[in-house]
């Protein structure tokens, strides 16, 4: 018999926080993964005790249950607490694919909907409709086997190309983003540079390949992003963002002007799993501009560690 052990996700040691990207989620705009302790805690009742068991464990694949949280509703509130619009997210049956985002007014009338359609795992279409369900624009996305978007082509409702973005990945990391105009001419190239697998600099180049602006990213010893500074091509700072964490979770983001003064703040209140359940946008004087309340649902995914 093999002893069963479980490691629950509690606030994670900062050293072990990792960002991952999952192929099963094709439609994500942004992913933030917080991993748990890699060493499972041993159950008091069923300790792993014998060498035989250890050997057996090594032979069998380890089942990993992953709890995935996904937002199902985001309510927006004005600074004075009055409710504004809200967005409802709809997923497929097991919650693994986002199918629709619907934006409703305070009066519950549909303002806009975004519909996602998938063709296997290789491509998707994102269509944007107005409140009257008239198509406004759509986007064709080409996706690689790891779920990375390689190409986005944006069309208007008359099938006229508006813009195109192409992305390159290496070892699962985005290394280039190129933007093209409606005629296919290159408008901009953005290069993502990594040091020891960590994104440390982003260069934004003109079509001719000249540096136009760049971003420097600073991390703490635990790998948490502390600052993102934006410079022009001459190395003069334009603005910056700084980040504060509590128990490994982001709790405050400051957007600073070029002279270092605070332009605005974003405060995150997280649940026990690190999901930001409340996001507060404030100006420099701490006046609340908007408050977002997010409701999540979760699902479990089983995978096997080899």
């Amino acid at each position, binding site marked *: 018999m093999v002893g069963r052990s479980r490691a629950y996700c509690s606030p994670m040691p900062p050293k072990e926080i990792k960002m991952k990207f999952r192929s099963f989620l094709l439609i994500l705009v942004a992913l933030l993964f917080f991993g748990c302790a890699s060493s499972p805690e041993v159950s008091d009742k069923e300790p792993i005790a014998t060498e035989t068991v250890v050997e057996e*464990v090594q032979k069998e694949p380890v089942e990993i249950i992953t709890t995935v949280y996904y937002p199902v509703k985001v309510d927006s509130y004005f600074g004075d607490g009055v409710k504004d619009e809200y967005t409802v997210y709809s997923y497929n049956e097991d919650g693994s694919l986002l199918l629709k985002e619907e934006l409703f007014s305070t009066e519950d009338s549909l303002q806009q909907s975004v519909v996602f359609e998938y063709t296997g795992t290789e491509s998707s279409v994102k269509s944007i409709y107005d409140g009257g369900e008239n198509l406004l624009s759509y986007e064709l996305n080409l996706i690689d086997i790891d779920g990375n978007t390689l190409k986005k082509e944006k069309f208007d409702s008359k099938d006229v190309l508006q813009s195109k973005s192409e992305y390159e990945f290496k070892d699962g990391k985005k290394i280039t983003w190129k933007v093209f105009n409606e005629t296919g001419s290159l408008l901009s190239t953005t290069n993502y540079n990594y040091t020891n697998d960590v994104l440390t600099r982003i260069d934004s180049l003109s079509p001719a390949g000249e540096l136009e602006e760049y*971003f420097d990213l600073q991390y703490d010893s635990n790998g948490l992003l502390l600052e*993102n500074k934006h410079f022009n091509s001459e190395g003069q700072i334009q603005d910056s963002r700084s980040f504060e964490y509590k128990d490994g979770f982001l709790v405050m983001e400051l957007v600073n002007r070029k002279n270092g003064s605070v332009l605005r703040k974003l405060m995150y209140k997280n649940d026990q799993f690190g999901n930001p359940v409340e996001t507060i946008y404030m100006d420099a004087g701490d006046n609340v501009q908007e408050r977002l309340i997010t409701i999540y649902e979760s699902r479990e995914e089983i995978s096997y560690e080899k």
Partner: protein
Amino acid sequence: MKNRKILSIVLILLIVATAIPANEVSAVWTRLFRRAVSLTQKSNIMSNIVEQHNRDMIPVLIEALEEQIGSLENSGDVTARMETADYTKMIVKELGRLKATEASPYIWQIVQASDDPFLKGEAIIALGKVGARKYTNELNLLLRNLNFNLGDIQDQRKNEIVAFSLVIALDRLKQPESYSPLFFASTGWYSSRSGIRAKAGESMLSLLDDPTEQLMEIMKESKAFDIKLAALDAGAKSKASEEKKANLAVLALKEGLLASPQNPTEKIQLKSLRVLALNILESSSSKPEEAISYMNRMLVGYRTEKLFEIDEMVDLFETFGTFSSDDSVKAQTEFLSYLTERKESGSVIDLRISKSAVIAIGNTGNSLGFEQLTNVQYSESWENSVKREAKNALSKLK
């Protein structure tokens, strides 16, 4: 058995895009927008900017809007004008969604400059969303003018689009001075399909807990009886105190008695006004003495000219029954005495009137009613059913 580990993975869409270093996206689109020359290029890039739904984009959105202010009037042919309007609408809407307060002067300029009702309406809604309270008076004035419906009849649909936007914006801005234009929108010429009247009615409720002052002013100043009635109705539905509602009802009763109807419609409106006022006074815990003099005027009016219909008189007595002061009971007993005299002289008195008058005095519980109720009980002229009511009423007196 399999060895199990449970990992918790937090998956966050959209809302924490800012938690990862994504501001290069804002920077790139901003730069590309500034380089775009034609409206098509700008519009194509703007659709990407709007899709970011990111506050970093506010400066470039404002920049784009400012550029549009001067060009709205010089947009060429119909197609070009429509493209310009759609493009501007996209910017305005996003600034509203981002609650970009700093954009309000530019959005207001769009309201002023645009003839397109959809763009104008979008800009008005955006002003509400960005909390542009400094434009409340201007928006109130716009709605007030639309409420008058002085424009061409072919512009009514356009005006409804703008009016609906104004109601939404004023509802959001929640300024007391918007109560009056919202009230007149709720009673205005607008079609049911437009939803303006219903929305304005809802907004009034949330705008002021106690709109009595505003409604009294409307009731005094408006000559239209249906407006007076609507004002009283709005007061009854408001969150104002019982006392305030009763005061408004007294004013409505006064207005309903002073005015002379010029046609059957007005007659019905005035009756409705008086009946609603009486109903409010009946159900209210506040019993203003001032009401008694107007209620007594109704008794006098009935005696002298049969001014009021029986059902209205029944309502009047039901209300009188909740006013137990001496003045109230004196007015009622005087009327009952008149009825008894008439009865004894052989006149036909409507049973509903006589019974209601008797019951009302009993309901006051005031002993001043004793004499007249006793007269009824022992009168040889009154029907037995009226006498029975008088006996019951007497048992309620203290």
